[in-house]
C-alpha cells in the first residue's frame, strides 16, 4: 500500500517536472539521507533522547499528580484547574520563556515536551483511578484494607488500561513538544535540522527529517503498545489483538 503511494509520488514528480524545492521525489529524499547519514542519525537520537526524558517526566509527574487529585478534594479543586488552564496556553508561546529560564541546552526542550505530554496522561490516569468499581472498594473495606493498599493493589492495576491510553497519546505529544523546543531553542535535533533546511530552501532535507520523525513517532508508539500487550494481557482490549 505504502509502496504504491511512493511509486505514484515518484511518477507524478518526475512526470510533471516538479522542482526539488517544492516537492522532492522519494528517490531524492533517500539520496539526501545517504548524503549525511551519520549526522542525521545523530540528530534523530538527540530528538529521541529529549522525547524520552520529557515523556518519562510527564509519566512520573502526571501519575503522581493524578493520585494527589484523586485522594485530595483540595488538589482536585486547585491543581486540576490550574493544569487545565495551563494546558490551554499554546506551548509554542511559552517556549521562548523557557529558553530564558532554562538556557539553550536540552532543559527547555525537555520541559516543553513534558508540559505537552503530561496532560493526556494526567486526565486518563485520573479517570482510571476514579473508575474503580465501588463494590470492589467495599470488598476491600471488609478486608480491612488501608487506603494505601487499596491504591496499590486495586485502583492502580485497574487504572492501567486508561493510563496506557494516556501514555500512547502522551508519547506522541512529547515528540511534538521536543520538535517545538528544537525550533525555538535550536542547537540539535530533527527540529533544528528542519529549521536550518527550511531557511536554505533545502526541501529534500526537510523531507528526510520529516520521514525520520515519522519513524521515531511510530517506534515510540509501538514501544508503548508492546509494553501494553505484555502488562495488560488480562484486559478485554487485548483479547482481540493479533
Amino acid at each position, binding site marked *: 500500500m505504502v509502496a504504491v503511494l511512493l511509486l505514484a509520488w515518484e511518477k507524478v514528480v518526475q512526470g510533471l517536472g516538479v522542482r526539488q524545492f517544492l516537492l522532492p521525489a522519494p528517490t531524492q529524499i533517500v539520496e539526501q539521507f545517504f548524503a549525511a547519514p551519520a549526522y542525521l542519525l545523530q540528530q534523530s537520537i538527540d530528538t529521541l533522547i529529549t522525547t524520552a526524558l520529557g515523556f518519562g517526566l510527564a509519566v512520573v509527574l502526571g501519575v503522581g499528580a493524578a493520585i494527589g487529585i484523586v485522594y485530595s478534594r483540595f488538589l482536585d479543586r486547585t491543581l486540576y484547574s490550574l493544569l487545565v488552564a495551563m494546558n490551554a496556553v499554546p506551548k509554542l508561546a511559552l517556549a521562548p520563556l523557557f529558553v530564558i529560564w532554562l538556557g539553550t541546552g536540552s532543559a527547555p526542550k525537555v520541559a516543553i515536551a513534558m508540559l505537552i505530554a503530561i496532560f493526556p496522561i494526567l486526565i486518563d490516569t485520573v479517570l482510571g483511578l476514579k473508575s474503580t468499581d465501588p463494590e470492589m472498594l467495599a470488598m476491600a473495606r471488609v478486608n480491612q484494607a488501608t487506603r494505601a493498599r487499596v491504591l496499590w*493493589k486495586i485502583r492502580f492495576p485497574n487504572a492501567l488500561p486508561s493510563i496506557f491510553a494516556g501514555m500512547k497519546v502522551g508519547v506522541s505529544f512529547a515528540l511534538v513538544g521536543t520538535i517545538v523546543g528544537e525550533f525555538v531553542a535550536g542547537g540539535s535535533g530533527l527540529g533544528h535540522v528542519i529549521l536550518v533546511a527550511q531557511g536554505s530552501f533545502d526541501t529534500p532535507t526537510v523531507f528526510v527529517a520529516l520521514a525520520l520523525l515519522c519513524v521515531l513517532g511510530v517506534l515510540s508508539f509501538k514501544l508503548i503498545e508492546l509494553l501494553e500487550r505484555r502488562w495488560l494481557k488480562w484486559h478485554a482490549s487485548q483479547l482481540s489483538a493479533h
Partner: protein
Amino acid sequence: MSDFLEIDRVNKIYETERGRFHALKDISVSIKQGEFLSIVGPSGCGKSTLLKCIAGLEPVSSGRLALEDQIVVEPPRNMGVVFQRDLLMEWRNILDNVLIAPELHGLPRSRYEARARELLLLFGLGKFMDSFPRELSGGMRQRVSICRALLLDPQLLLMDEPFGALDPFTRDELNAEIQRTWLATGKTVVFITHSIEEAVFLGSRVVIMARGPGRIEEIVPIELDRPRGLETRESSEFVAYVKRIRDKFRELGIYKGGRL
C-alpha cells in the same frame, strides 16, 4: 450471655433530595453463634442494606447492632463477605485472587498460600489456580469469591444473594457446597436471597422481610434434618415451609404480576 450477633430495633434512614427514605424500620433479630440465618424478601425490602449495616459498611441511624458484644461502627475483623457479583480482579490469576484477602489485611501471603490451595481444591477449582477470571464461568468465579471470603477463617460469613446471577443447576450445586462448608466449620452465616426455596433449604431460620418501609414480618424456624439434599426439596415438610412463606408474601401483596 448475649447472642453472637444482636440486631435490636435497628433503623436506617437515608436523606435524599426527594426526602427521607426509611430503608430499615425497627429491625430486631438475635443470631446465635453457629446459626445459618436466611433472609428472604422482594427487591427494595432493605435486605442488602441490612447486610451492609452488619458488615459495618453503613452506619445505622438508630438501634443497636453488636457483634460479640461490640457495637459495629466499621467492618469488623473475623468476618467474610460474599457479594452478589464475584468482584474478582481480572489482572490476577485465581490463586492470587483468593490471596488478595490476606494481602489487603496486611498479612503475609506465604502464611495463607497452602490454605488457599486447599480451599480451591475443595471447591473443585484445583485445575484453575493459574487461570485468569475471564477463563472461568460465572459459577466458578463465584466459587473463587467464596474461597476468598473463607480464607482467613472468619467466624461470621455474610452472603448477599451470592447465587442470584447463576443458573439453577449451579445454584443447587453451590447450595450443597455452602451447606457442607457450614456443617464442617460451624461458622455463623447470614444469607440473603430472593429465592424462598434457597432460604428454606439452607436456613435454620428464615427471616421474612417486606418493603415500604423495609421491615421484618416474621421469622420462621426451619426444622428439617441436616444434611439436606435434593430429596429434602421434594419432601412434604419442605414444600409446606415454602408454601407458608409464599403465602405470607401473597398476604403482603408482594405478588402482583407473580414475580418476587
